[in-house]
Each structure stands twice: as structure tokens, then as C-alpha cells.
């Protein structure tokens, strides 16, 4: 008899699951889904590399490169906390699936050697 109540409830109430992937839930604001680096702001200080527990980040100050292995990253967010210029951030969406193992490789802009503001902008455009 105790089943009757449950059966009626299940017939009338909304489904507990979602029609994924047609319907997706909005990610929560503080979710750590993807590591991103604003390479223009990055000063290549290596703090993220030294604090990373899974050692997935490689920074080269001379070549001005920042490299991350997204398959080794554990999304703990420690690098984001230690970043002195806040160039690292976590996006609240998952990284899309890939069939190949790819590194996130980022080449920073060349170091500005007391150039004028106008020249700097032109240099960036050329790079793009």
C-alpha cells in the first residue's frame, strides 16, 4: 500500500534528470572548470609553476612562454591564488573534450623596451 502514494507522486512530478546534452544546467559562479591565462598581463614569475601540486605548468622567462598540460591539471586553483598580477583565472565551464593530447601553449608578447605607446600597439597587431 505504501507504494501507491509513491507511484502517484512519480507520475505527477517533474523528472529528476535533465535531457542532457539538449538541456544543460548553468554552471555555478565559483566553479573551477578551466584554467586560463591572460598572457598579455603575465609577468612569467614562475610562482604558478612552483606552487602547482601536479606540476602541470611550465614557464620560461627568457622565451616568454607559458605552457600547461590540461590533462595533468587537477583544477585546484592554487596557481590562481598565488598569481601576483591576477593573469590566471578559472572559467566556470568544463574544458571541451578532445581526441588528442594537446598542451596549452602560450607565447607572450615581446618585452616592451621603453617603446612608445603607439609603437607597442602596432607590434601587437603584427603578431596577430
Amino acid at each position, binding site marked *: 500500500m*505504501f507504494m501507491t502514494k509513491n507511484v502517484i507522486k512519480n507520475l505527477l512530478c517533474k523528472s*529528476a534528470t535533465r535531457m542532457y546534452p539538449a538541456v544543460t544546467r548553468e554552471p*555555478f*559562479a*565559483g*566553479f*573551477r572548470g578551466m584554467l586560463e591565462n591572460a598572457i598579455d598581463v603575465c609577468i612569467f614569475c614562475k610562482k604558478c609553476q612552483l*606552487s*602547482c*601540486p*601536479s606540476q602541470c605548468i611550465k614557464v620560461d622567462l627568457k622565451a616568454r612562454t607559458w605552457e600547461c598540460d590540461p590533462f595533468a591539471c*587537477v*583544477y*585546484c*586553483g*592554487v596557481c590562481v*591564488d598565488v598569481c601576483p598580477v591576477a593573469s590566471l583565472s*578559472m572559467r566556470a565551464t568544463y574544458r571541451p573534450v578532445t581526441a588528442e593530447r594537446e598542451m596549452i601553449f602560450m607565447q607572450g608578447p615581446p618585452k616592451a623596451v621603453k617603446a612608445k605607446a603607439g609603437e607597442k600597439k602596432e607590434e601587437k597587431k603584427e603578431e596577430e
Partner: protein
Amino acid sequence: MARTILPFGPQHPVLPEPIHLTLEIEDEIVKSAVPALGYVHRGLEKLCEIRDFHQMIQIVERVCGICSKIHAMCYCQGLEELMGVEVPRRAKYLRVAWSELHRIHSHLLWIGLFADAFGFESLFMQCWRIRERIMDINEATTGNRVVVSVNVVGGVRRDLSKEHQTWIGEQLKLVEKEVLALKSTIVSDYTVKRRTQGVGVLTKDQAHQLGAVGPVLRASGWAQDARMLGYAAFDELEFAPVVEYDGDCYARLVVRFREVLQSVDLVRQALSRLPEGDINVPVKGKPKGEVITRVEQPRGELLYYIKGNDTKFLDRLRIRTPTFANIPPLLAMLPGVELADVPVVVLSIDPCISCTER
């Protein structure tokens, strides 16, 4: 009939993780059991020699996928004791709130798996549906569903806003309502009682002599809980250990079911008394000396031994997980049990093999 040797595991439909038991059987009754461990050893303790003590927080979290927060909390407590850091009160309350949320979802997961072990699929489904609310709370407040990474030496990394607190309160109300709706099924259903009552009995003396911990110990009539030590903010919260006296699988089920409701109450208490202030303090210096810390995991008492040598690497990190302590009691429960009940008995200690082998 002559005695037969039957291997149970390492791969078995009821086992989430690999453990091997060599069962000696006579007329389908188990006479003795010999365990074999070591299928998922990862060498996490050794990593303390090449990762500094801050990075180890993220590594000890991965000892156990279900109670990650509690592992990190135990490790941080040990280091704070070594380095003489006084954690802010707000951080202590937040640690309690998150660790109790972990206990709720771990117990709901276990009740589901246990129901699955004796073929009660719909109870499994209901428990895991309720658990999803707790996972959402984890995701919204800490940034991840399972491995939450909120602990640092000296406090916690994230704060709970007022909106989050009220939202957690609302969600917990729903969780409590839904868990109570399952009460009649879990506690008084004929199927559940038939499969669990009187099966795998661990007497009060045996539980003490073999060093059982956690719900296994409390189901045998001992009112022992590491939370009674008063770590974090547990000394300021109202709390009494849940005790059952039969020592069988049913008693262990009831203990865990009642602990879900107790943890809901503890989260509410922690949030209602949440003091204002900082959530962490800056930590200077390196750990030096030895320390042993204990906390209560969902599965029982967790013990960390930490030895620092005044460098950023630890000399030794030893983790004794509750499942390791509960394997001798399991071997005492098995003799006399029917072969068909072995999965139920094995699952009743809530085995976490990855924890045990680290």
C-alpha cells in the same frame, strides 16, 4: 561436503574497488577468510619527499575520493599543531560545515551501494538522487563536486556568503525531508531486514579487541567517535555519538542512516553559530617535529602521523585510514555467514580500498 576454496574479488559486481578475499567454504557456509590487498597502491605517502608541504594538501585529498575534505583537514590540523598556528574561529566552523556535508554525501552513497548489494535498485536510485543536492552545494560553495580543495594550512580558502548560507539551509531542509521519506524503507522494510538482520555479527568485545572504528564500532555498542575529541569547532557544537547495540549489518545501516540526520543538524548548528572574522592566517616557517592527529571520517577514525625536519619537505607522512582498521573486524564477521551474504557483509564496513592502500 569437503571444504572448498573460493576466491572473492578482486573484481566482483558489488565491489567498487579491488580487494581479494580467499574464502574457505563448507556447505556454502564461510569457515574462514584471508584478505589480499595491494591492487591499487599509488605511493602517495612517498610523494611527501618531492612535493612541498603545501602541495601535499592537494595530494592527501586524493587519498580518498569521497572524503577528500576530511583528509586535507586532518593533514592541515597536524601541520598547524607542528607550526603553532592558531586557526581563526570562522575557519574552524567552515571546516565543520564542509566536513559534515562530506559525511552526508558519503553515507548516502554507501546506503545506495549497500541497497544495491542486496538487489534493492530503487533505494539505490533514491539515495543517489538525494546525494546530488549535497554535490551541488559542494560545487557552488567550494568550486568542485568531489575534491573540494578548500583547506590551506592556517584556515580555509573560501568563505560562505550570506546568500550561500540561506541556500544551504533550504537545500538541507529538502535533503532532510527526502531522507526521512526513505526512513520507513531503510529501517523497517521486510526485504532490508531479511537480508541484514543477524548477518555478520560483531560482538561488543570483538569490536574492541580487533580495533574496529567508526560506524562499525558504534553499531556494536561503543559510544566512540573521534569528533568527541573536539577538533575544529566540534567542542562548541552539541553532539552525541550514534550508537546501536546489535552489531549486525542492520545495526551498521541504522547507525549510518541516523548519522546522516545528525550531520544535517551539525551543518545547521555550524552555520547558525558562524562567527565573523578572517578565514585564514598567513603561515610562516617550516614544520619541525612529530605529530599525530585524528579526525572522524565517514568510515571511522582517520590517523595522520607527520614528521617534519625544518625543510619544506616532510620526513615522513603516515596515513592510517579507517578501512585498514576495519579489515580485521570484517574477517571476524565472515565465519558462519552464508556465501550469498558475503557481499552484504563486506560492503557493511564501507570498504574504501584506495584509501587503505594509498
